[in-house]
């Protein structure tokens, strides 16, 4: 195809947007609303995952050591724990540190500590964090095989609840987003079909004068592509403004969220580039491919 033809067809695509401005506006609005619905659903899911992740990070496995364990054995145990799979951090907590922590947590009980004296009655311990809490039970089995352990304290009940919650969120979000995408595709397809339908006469004329299918499709492709990209840009801006405003409202009183163990929401800035790219690419793909597919039945002349 000649460069002049490509320029002409691109120009025709852009011109068509204005010529059929009512239908173009309808397609653009449907595309934008669809992108926004899916975008907000993704942000909602990401935030839920963040909350669950935060709660997960607060879980801690504490290994209390026997009193007769030597310093060498403690160091060796630390190395073995660090080498284990599914353990993200290992921190040694001496009996003195544990005692100081206990004192700090019981400020009004100085008299009680006077009876105990300066020697710590608490055991040395290792405090661990696991990478994947769903594998907690197998990790605990490996830990229990080590020698010199007095007791292991792990939030196993809490883990099973969180694992179940995460699976539920995953399934619900997949179903929700898939349903939204399908609904949006159906609406977009009908809107673009209506937009193309009013130009079926034009397409038939093109076919009669010997235009190839590619020649007919290119302006529709350009038209859908441009509208999709524009819908993607507008969706990014609307999501940014809308999401920030929503977060401002929700965070105006942090008491409720703090009680739930939630320190904050995902900042839009941290996902802005990813979302903008997804919006523009999805908008361009749905707009261009959807429009071209809608022309197919009119090409059989």
């Amino acid at each position, binding site marked *: 195809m*000649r460069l002049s*033809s490509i320029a002409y067809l691109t120009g025709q695509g852009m011109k068509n947007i204005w*010529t059929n401005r009512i239908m173009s506006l309808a397609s653009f609005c449907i595309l934008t609303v669809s992108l926004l619905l899916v975008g907000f659903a993704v942000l909602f899911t990401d935030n839920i995952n963040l909350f669950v992740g935060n709660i997960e990070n607060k879980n801690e496995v504490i290994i209390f050591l026997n009193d007769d364990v030597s310093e060498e054995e403690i160091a060796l145990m630390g190395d073995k724990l660090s080498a284990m799979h599914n353990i993200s951090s290992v921190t040694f907590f001496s009996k003195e540190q544990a005692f100081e922590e206990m004192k700090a947590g019981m400020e009004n009980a100085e008299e009680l500590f006077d009876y105990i004296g300066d020697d710590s009655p608490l055991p040395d311990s290792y405090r661990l964090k696991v990478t994947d809490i769903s594998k907690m039970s197998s990790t605990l089995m490996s830990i229990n095989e080590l020698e010199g352990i007095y007791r292991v304290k792990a939030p196993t009940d809490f883990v099973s609840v969180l694992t179940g919650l995460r699976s539920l969120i995953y399934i619900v979000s997949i179903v929700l987003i898939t349903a939204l995408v399908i609904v949006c595709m159906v609406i977009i397809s009908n809107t673009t079909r209506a937009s193309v339908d009013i130009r079926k006469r034009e397409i038939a004329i093109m076919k009669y*004068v*010997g*235009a*190839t299918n590619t*020649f007919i499709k290119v302006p529709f492709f350009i038209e859908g592509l441009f509208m999709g990209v524009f819908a993607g840009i507008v969706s990014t801006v609307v999501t940014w403004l809308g999401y920030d405003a929503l977060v401002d409202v929700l965070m105006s009183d942090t008491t409720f969220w703090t009680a739930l163990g939630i320190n904050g929401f995902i900042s839009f800035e941290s996902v802005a580039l990813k979302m903008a790219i997804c919006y523009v690419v999805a908008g361009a793909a749905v707009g261009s491919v959807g429009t071209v597919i809608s022309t197919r039945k009119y090409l059989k*002349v």
Partner: protein
Amino acid sequence: MVELRNVSVKYPSGVEALRDVSLTINDRDFVFVVGESGAGKSTLIKLLIREIAPTEGKIKVNGYNLNKLKQKEIPDLRRTIGFVFQDFKLINSMNVYDNVAFVLRSIDAPTKYIRKRVPYVIGLVGLKDKMYAYPNEMSGGEQQRVALARALVNDPKLIIADEPTGNLDPKTSIEIIQLLQGINDCGTTVLMVTHEHELVKRFGGRTILISDGRIILDKEI
């Protein structure tokens, strides 16, 4: 050249639109095809532009064997044919120049050629001063002239005019047929479908009468 040998068309509904039609139209011929509504005239046109395929028989148009023509070769066939329709079929969002240039653009013709050829053809049909007017600003006769210019611009071997005077007054109808005759004089084959017998009688020439899917008359009038 158009050649049909024992062509029949039966639609899925069971209607037999053409029955065992054989016909030859030589280069430079001017042929009227007449017949009542539902006689098979439109089916004949659809066959010639390969909008439909025959149920039986062989068809050749401008050197293309339509029985063996692949889907992707249909645009090539249609570029050798110019169409003139009863309802003009102009694109209302394009001015006269663009409606005509559109045909050349669709075959990827060089811009220089388009700029030279389009005004020339618009001049041939007498619309030089309306080059940038839009179809809805023109009379029926003028719109049909634009359609003629569009049919001519690609220098086709064959022009098929389907009831080109159906929406026009008698005076304008005569002007359009005179234009078609002028085009024929320059060497282009013209096949004009009409139900206006008065016009056929007035201009005369080879006339094919179709009735109930069969050719019942093919002679010079």
